[in-house]
């Protein structure tokens, strides 16, 4: 992190606060475009001060404004009406006019959402670290249930379940996600059987505080919100079949996260803490023949 002078720090802060004159604002903007760290500092201030907008009341602009925006970006009405988004799906709430909605809710939830979003960024790093762990053989196979211990030739490059239903084979592909804090020791090991979509969570290094429960969530950019996969029981293993209702694509690419919830789990289907442990699935046991091998 570059050290900035107090003048530069104050410039960033006052840009965000809004008290610079026109010339100083231009100066700050020039610095932002030339210096990414300075721009990040301004963004950090805008973010810190931005929470004040929670207290600003919402006011509806006139409908003409939307028409002007549409014509300014060359958006035609017909197109907008016909075009169905792929994700996220339309919900009836989503298209309600917002005059009656207290938009402060949007902001009220934002801190939590940010933490959730950070999970996605974080998991990339975690996945990379995990692959490295597997590669160097640090990974302890005996942490895994017998049935899913990785074979010596561990395959992590491709993580795709077959899209056609897999006929029962003696050994189907197994996927493992190690749920951990950033850089921390594994806390839970999630294993998914590609054929049955049953999953097992094994507790390896975490215990819930009294009166709290760990709850497992599936986070996917194909779904509008984190989906609960249920409370992780107190025993060492928790096995469930709830993944059966999700597509392979979702299962493969989702982030799995554990939050701390009230005893018995989240009462409303939404997470109430930042994700404590997170991970993504990695194939550890390639499907047995005759399924096509993904080895390179």
């Amino acid at each position, binding site marked *: 992190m570059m050290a900035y002078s*107090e003048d530069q720090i104050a410039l960033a802060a006052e840009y965000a606060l809004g008290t610079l004159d026109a010339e100083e604002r231009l100066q700050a903007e020039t610095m932002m475009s030339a210096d990414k760290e300075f721009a990040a500092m301004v*963004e950090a201030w805008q*973010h810190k*001060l931005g929470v004040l907008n929670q207290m600003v009341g919402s006011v509806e602009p006139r409908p003409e404004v939307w028409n*002007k925006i549409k014509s300014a970006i060359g958006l035609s009405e017909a197109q907008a009406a016909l075009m169905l988004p792929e*994700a996220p799906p339309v919900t009836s709430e989503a298209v309600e006019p917002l005059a009656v909605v207290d938009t402060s809710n949007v902001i009220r939830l934002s801190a939590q959402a940010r933490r959730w979003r950070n999970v996605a960024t974080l998991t990339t790093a975690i996945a990379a670290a995990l692959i490295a762990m597997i590669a160097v053989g640090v990974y302890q196979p005996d942490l895994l249930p017998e049935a899913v211990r990785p074979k010596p030739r561990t395959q992590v490059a491709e993580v795709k379940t077959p899209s056609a239903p897999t006929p029962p084979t003696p050994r189907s592909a197994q996927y493992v996600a190690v749920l951990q804090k950033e850089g921390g020791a594994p806390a839970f090991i999630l294993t998914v059987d590609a054929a049955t979509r049953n999953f097992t969570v094994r507790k390896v290094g975490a215990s819930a505080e009294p009166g709290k429960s760990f709850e497992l969530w599936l986070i996917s*950019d194909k779904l509008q919100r984190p989906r609960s996969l249920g409370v992780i029981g107190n025993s060492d293993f928790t096995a469930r079949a709830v993944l059966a209702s999700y597509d392979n694509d979702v299962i493969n690419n989702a982030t799995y996260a554990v939050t701390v919830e009230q005893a018995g789990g989240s009462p409303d289907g939404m997470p109430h803490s930042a994700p404590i442990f997170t991970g993504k699935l990695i194939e550890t046991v390639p499907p047995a023949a005759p399924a096509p091998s993904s080895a390179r």
Partner: protein
Amino acid sequence: MLTPAELVWLIAAVAKGDEAAFERLYAATRAKLFGVVLRILRRQDLAEEVIQETYVKIWNSAGQFNPGLSSPITWMASIARNRAIDIVRKRGELSIEEEPAAMEVAADSPDPLARREMTEELKRLLECVGRLEPDRQKLVLLAYYNGWSREQLAAKFETPVNTVKTWLRRSVMDIRECLGL
């Protein structure tokens, strides 16, 4: 009600040119953004122009939104607010003269929320602002909510512009230390 996660996905869809997502994003955020800029510009026509420019910019630069740095609504509100402040700075000191009543109306902070409705981040910031001397608390909030220049703040506090400059500098540095930025 859209969740913040939904807003993130809408912005991601907008970045790919999804027009329906853009319409939903607009529906979900327009009133908050309009409220923010109207408070600064105090003129419906100018505020509408800013909202128009803001959403055109959001459409064109949705791909630059970095969820690691900001929340969706803060990112969008910053675009709108920066544009509004650019306009009032370039137009000079008109708002007080044009609307003498604005000063009094604006002297109060906007709708206080019940404490339980505030996010932790807002509570934290307000705690830090609350540690400033009472005049400086007001100074910072007026600057943020109303987008006032140092000259306007100097008029309001009946103090030289240079004093306001010093107060502002000290205030942001104190807030920075308090927030651990």
